[in-house]
């Protein structure tokens, strides 16, 4: 071959190879700048925040939804990627709880109902369109009215304009509005306040003003009325030097472990304790107010020995609790939650009310003028009546909106069976829950973040609900559905949709300027006149006269405790809340019953053994988790784990009873795998939370470093975690998951021990009835053990003191994880999946890690980057608190503080130089950047 021929052939061959290997279609993406920006505020790559209201529980916290522009299926749209509290909001003041953070996954829940559904003759659901659904409903309503049937509208707690619209709708269409259904209706407190003060209301407890807080059963940090608000207020109270908090409960709860002192009381005997306290106060004549003689006469009289033996509290403890009242200037007593949810709950609440009145709390720390808006919420007794009416074939059409009563009311009401007797059942819901599955027509509701509305959590406070994105599916808000239904009847409605309805109303009520402000701020608080609280002697006497002969609930007893993860069970459908472990047991997925260690020993039970729990009306097979601290013969369970969470109702108050006494526990012999994420419930003397009790002995503390010291020029990022303020609520964990695209891996992998959390709450029980919680995240060590062992520099130390993990450099030797004493590194054992539409939640500022790569906490490096960019634009240094990590941002008690430790004015510098400060495993010489502040009671010993 000639040289020229060779060159020709080579030229043709190589150019044709090049041409064919360029797949232009796939490899290019069109980047077209806006000619006309769709909305003036949108700048690609920048977040927009919409202030709205969280509706995951009835507390109505203000949330700021972080929206990002993204492209899906060639459609440009705004999608929420993160929730943060609205700073200065009267309920949550910029913070959120674990459920609030996770409520974003309800918006993107893969199982959301996407279209209206109709049950066909075979009982299967078929998709229909909205107009079809409306006409079916209107026809049914007409038919039912003609047939002389009653129609019912049953909903969960509803406040604000939507409640008004429902009233309006019901009036116009001849529907009867049933009392709203909430499991945690706090009926006993309402009833007691009605008896004593003629106010059937739940007041606002101003914990922040108190210097002595005594909580009886009330899980103020988990589910009690407004947990985030309580936590925020508690953190303010804790910052006062003389604040004391005692907690009394019949089981163990997360709230209990946060108190200064925790006492265990026999279930149902709270009345004895309250009686003792009240008598003690009367005898000591501590307070100016005097109870009228006739009331005093009827207060039951028990000797202190009797109180002690009934309650199970030592005399010393009784006096410790009582004496603290003497020392306190501003005491606050709250009884509620588990302590009012039994047959003596009303007595408990009434005696509490008397103490609250006599000590003057009702004039100071307990505010009835800003009472929580529970006026529409009904009781269990009302549900029983409704069930009876259903059973009597009185009901034609029943609407069930945003509530799932079938699992939450006593089985003896046969609600699930009776509801089938209604002629037509219409469910309004976002997910197919137990009750909604029984319906004939299902109308899919838009999530709060897709709809307009407002809420009215308590007197004088209105919060805004506004959409942050277009509805993902063919869903509508409840207001829109009702207006559509009205349109059939009424052609002359002055508004086309619920949004117009709301704006008209707001403009009428507040005027234009205030409405503008309301839309911007997301809430509006008006001053309310103070209410005078008077004791209604007659009705108090009438109640005390017939006070039930008190006894205690017989053991062994099963207690259904509220769960910080699922509230009353409603949030258990969110995958993220199953992924994050329960802080007390560290169990993530599945069901279990908590068993006290002593009982477990006598029944020869250990973690994962299956037991059969039986009692009249209940039979359940569940695996066991041995729970340190739980009193003998008390079994605790979360609401979503049983077929019913309320066993009967107190006829007087209508409060549900969540205790089941005289249960039988039999070991079945089977064993069930439960994902207990903690390897040990004890610190094993390692001083992770240093306390003389936790520490066996000093370990080696001499070390020399062979490497030169790192130089940090302008910034060295550090974090301080105040364990005094930390309430182990796991909100930070949920925030971290969502902010950093941390994958939810599911039960199978949790059973293998492969959770992916970058941040976790570690509980350590010390065997003296106390539990220390510690927040564990990457410590960003100055001499990080992970750094020298990485063969490819995927783990390296950056000039700002961050321990960086380069995902695209990592080859996956896992040596860094082995060598990390804190074990905070997570390996991607497989490619994680975000099922549609959860993938829209992904934070575009941070990558999704592929299989074979190590990942870990980055101190939210994307937020640091953003602050750097802003600071650079304005030619200045980053200010203190300009960078707030996701965990610090959401913390209700502000226990986490992040900042630049080189800046001597920064908060983190001050905390890192507090006398309470210590670092975990300090003698290892890793020089962590996370500083922990030990609890105030613990001794200063490292």
């Amino acid at each position, binding site marked *: 071959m000639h040289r020229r021929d060779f060159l020709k052939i080579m030229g043709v061959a190589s150019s044709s190879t090049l041409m064919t290997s360029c797949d232009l279609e796939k490899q290019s993406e069109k980047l077209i700048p806006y000619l006309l920006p769709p909305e003036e505020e949108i700048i690609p790559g920048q977040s927009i925040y919409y202030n709205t209201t969280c509706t995951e529980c009835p507390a109505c916290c203000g949330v700021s939804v972080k929206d990002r522009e993204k492209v899906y299926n060639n459609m440009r749209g705004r999608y929420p990627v993160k929730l943060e509290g609205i700073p200065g909001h009267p309920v949550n003041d910029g913070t959120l709880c674990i459920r609030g953070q996770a409520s974003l996954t309800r918006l993107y829940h893969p199982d959301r109902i996407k279209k209206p559904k109709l049950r066909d003759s075979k009982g299967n659901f078929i998709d229909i369109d909205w107009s079809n659904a409306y006409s079916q409903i209107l026809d049914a309503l007409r038919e039912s009215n003609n047939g002389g049937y009653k129609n019912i509208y049953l909903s969960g707690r509803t406040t604000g304009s939507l409640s008004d619209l429902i009233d309006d709708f019901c009036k116009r269409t001849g529907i009867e509005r049933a009392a709203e259904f909430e499991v945690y209706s706090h009926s006993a407190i309402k009833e007691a306040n009605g008896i004593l003060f003629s106010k059937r209301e739940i007041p606002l407890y101003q914990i922040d003003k108190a210097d002595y807080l005594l909580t009886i059963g009330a899980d103020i940090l988990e589910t009690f009325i407004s947990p985030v608000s309580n936590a925020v207020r508690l953190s303010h109270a804790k910052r006062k030097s003389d604040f004391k908090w005692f907690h009394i409960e019949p089981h163990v709860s997360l709230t209990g472990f946060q108190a200064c002192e925790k006492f265990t009381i026999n279930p149902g005997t709270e009345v004895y304790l309250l009686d003792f306290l009240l008598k003690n106060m009367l005898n000591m004549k501590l307070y100016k107010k005097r109870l009228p003689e006739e009331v005093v006469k009827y207060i039951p009289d028990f000797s202190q020995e009797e109180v002690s033996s009934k309650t199970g509290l030592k005399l010393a403890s009784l006096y410790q609790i009582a004496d603290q009242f003497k020392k306190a200037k501003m005491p606050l007593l709250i009884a509620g939650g588990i302590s009012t949810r039994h047959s003596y709950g009303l007595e408990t609440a009434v005696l509490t009310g008397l103490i609250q009145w006599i000590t003057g709390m009702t004039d100071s720390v307990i505010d009835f003028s800003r009472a929580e808006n529970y006026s529409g919420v009904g009781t269990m007794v009302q549900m029983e009546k409704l069930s009876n009416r259903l059973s009597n074939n009185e009901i034609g059409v029943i609407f069930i909106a945003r509530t799932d009563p079938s699992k939450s009311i006593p089985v003896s009401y046969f609600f699930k069976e009776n509801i089938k007797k209604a002629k037509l059942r219409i469910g309004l819901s976002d997910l197919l829950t137990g009750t909604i599955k029984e319906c004939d027509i299902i109308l899919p509701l838009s999530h709060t973040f897709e709809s307009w509305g407002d809420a009215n959590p308590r007197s004088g406070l209105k919060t805004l609900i506004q959409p942050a994105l277009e509805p993902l599916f063919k869903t509508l808000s409840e207001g829109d559905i009702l207006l559509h239904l009205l349109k059939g009847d009424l052609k002359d409605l002055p508004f086309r949709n619920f949004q117009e309805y709301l704006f008209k109303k707001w403009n009428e009520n507040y005027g234009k300027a205030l409405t503008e402000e309301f839309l911007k701020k997301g809430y509006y608080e008006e001053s309310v006149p103070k209410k005078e609280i008077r004791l209604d002697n007659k009705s108090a006497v009438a109640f005390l006269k017939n006070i039930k002969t008190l006894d205690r609930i017989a053991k062994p007893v099963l207690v259904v405790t509220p769960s910080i993860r699922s509230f009353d069970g409603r949030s258990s459908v969110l995958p993220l809340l199953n992924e994050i472990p329960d802080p007390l047991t560290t169990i993530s997925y599945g069901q279990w019953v908590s068993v006290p260690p002593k009982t477990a020993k006598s029944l020869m039970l250990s973690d994962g053994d299956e037991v059969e729990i039986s009692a009249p009306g209940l039979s359940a097979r569940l695996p066991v988790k041995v729970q340190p601290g739980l009193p003998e013969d008390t079994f605790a369970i979360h609401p979503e784990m049983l077929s019913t969470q309320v066993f009967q109702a107190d006829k007087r108050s209508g409060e549900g009873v969540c205790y089941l006494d005289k249960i039988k526990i039999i070991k079945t012999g089977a064993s069930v795998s439960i994902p207990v994420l903690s390897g040990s419930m004890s610190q094993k003397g390692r001083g992770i939370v240093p306390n003389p009790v936790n520490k066996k002995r000093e370990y080696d503390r001499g070390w020399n470093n062979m490497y030169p010291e790192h130089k940090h020029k302008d910034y060295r990022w550090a974090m301080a975690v105040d364990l005094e303020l930390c309430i182990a609520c796991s909100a930070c964990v949920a925030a971290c998951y969502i902010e950093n695209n941390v994958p939810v891996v599911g039960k199978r992998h949790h059973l293998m021990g492969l959770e992916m959390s970058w941040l976790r709450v570690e509980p350590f029980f010390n065997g003296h009835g106390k539990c220390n919680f510690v927040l564990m995240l990457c410590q960003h060590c100055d001499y990080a053990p992970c750094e020298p*062992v*990485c063969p*490819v520099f995927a783990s390296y130390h950056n000039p700002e003191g961050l321990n960086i993990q380069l995902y695209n450099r990592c080859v996956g*030797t896992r040596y860094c994880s082995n*060598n990390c004493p804190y*074990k905070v590194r997570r*390996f991607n054992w497989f*490619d994680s999946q975000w099922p549609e539409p959860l993938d829209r939640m992904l934070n575009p500022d941070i990558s999704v890690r592929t299989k074979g790569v190590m990942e870990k906490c980055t101190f939210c490096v994307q937020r640091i980057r953003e602050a750097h960019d802003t600071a650079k634009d304005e030619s200045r240094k980053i200010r203190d608190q300009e960078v707030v990590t996701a965990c610090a941002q959401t913390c209700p008690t502000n226990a986490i503080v992040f900042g630049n430790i080189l800046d001597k004015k920064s908060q983190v510098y001050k905390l890192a130089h507090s006398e309470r400060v210590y670092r975990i495993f300090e003698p290892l010489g890793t020089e962590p950047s996370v500083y922990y502040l030990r609890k105030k009671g613990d001794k200063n010993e490292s």
Partner: protein
Amino acid sequence: MSPEAPGHIEIREQRDQVEKDILTSMKKPSLLFLACLGFTVALATVLLACWGYQIKTGLIVSGKNHPVGWYMYITSFVFWVGIAHSGTLISAILYLLRAGFRKSFNRSAEAMTVFSLMVAGMFPLIHLGRIWLFYWLMPYPNQRQIWVNFRSPLIWDVFAVGTYFTVSLIFFYVGMIPDLAIVRRCSDGFKKRIYSVLSLGWLGTPSQWRHYNQLYLLLASLATPLVLSVHSVVSWDFAMSIVPGWHTTIFAPYFVAGAIFSGTAMVILLVIPMRRMLSLEKYISVDDFENIAKILLFTSLIVTYSYIVEFCLAFYSGNIFEETVYKYRVLGDFKIMFWIMIFGNSILPLTLFIRKLRRNLPYLFVTSIFVIIGMWFERFVIIVTSLARDFDPYNWGIPNLSIIAIGIVLGSFGLFFMMFLLFVKLFPVLSITELKEKLE
């Protein structure tokens, strides 16, 4: 000297006999051999299939767990690198020491070294999260100007094992050149052409022999320090970390002794059946086995001593982390493995003090199997228990078994034995020239 002298004829006949005997082993394979080969090939295929599946799905299929980031793969890596060591010991150190029994074992021991290093080298790759980027572990100039981290013991490993493999391979090959020339002489056709290339034109002239002996001595002296250094570096994978149970200074000598111990057991395990199958009883005597059994006994004593020292270090340190790990080793979830290890590595070899048992080949064979199992478990216990009980009790956890990981580990044995069986048929299993030398 006349070639027809009667003594010379005798020696010549003997020489021919040696050649014939050794080369017989390279003749057509028996059915038993083919069955063994088939079995090992099947096992090696299992390894490849499991590995492929693991690459596709991710390491989740290997049943690994947090906190035990290193599990059966790294255990196997350390085990196979250890096996390699006695090959070098026998061929290089015993050569320098002029130990006579070396000639019975050196060729198979050298082959074993090369093959076990090949198997060992696979394991860090199998264990890698992103194996397709394995070349990032090697320093090479690149436009991104990213270098490897020379502070990481894993990089030291790359160099240590790489060097060791290169030197062992050259040593193995150079030692075989004169024998390959004999094979070339005795074969014809295509086979002859291949062995011609392999024997590098060896003629056996006195000048070639002079150079050859010099080279062999040089290579032996080069390989000798590697016996000590390579496993020391491998042990530093652990000793350089801060993990309790790993972070200890005795690891280097402890691992080297363990390596020679396990390798010697593997030599015995390979040579006893080979001797029987290829009828080499004449060339590999029971005396030779007795000698090698003494090495086994000696290294077993060092290993046992290390165990004791290790525990004393932990308990005298007063360090709560160390104490917990060592208590956990003896009494924890992996106590069965621990006690098998103690039995196989420390107790059973003590019986070799009895001369009769040292000379009893079946007994030696069984003992070697126990040593091999014990040594695998030793690495397993060190790696897994330390990671399972480290600093923060919240993270304590144990790994779970997986079929894929077991398949890969068993497959690695299959691959190793497959290569050895092929070696037996393709190369002279004993050094013909050395045996001839001895006749004179």
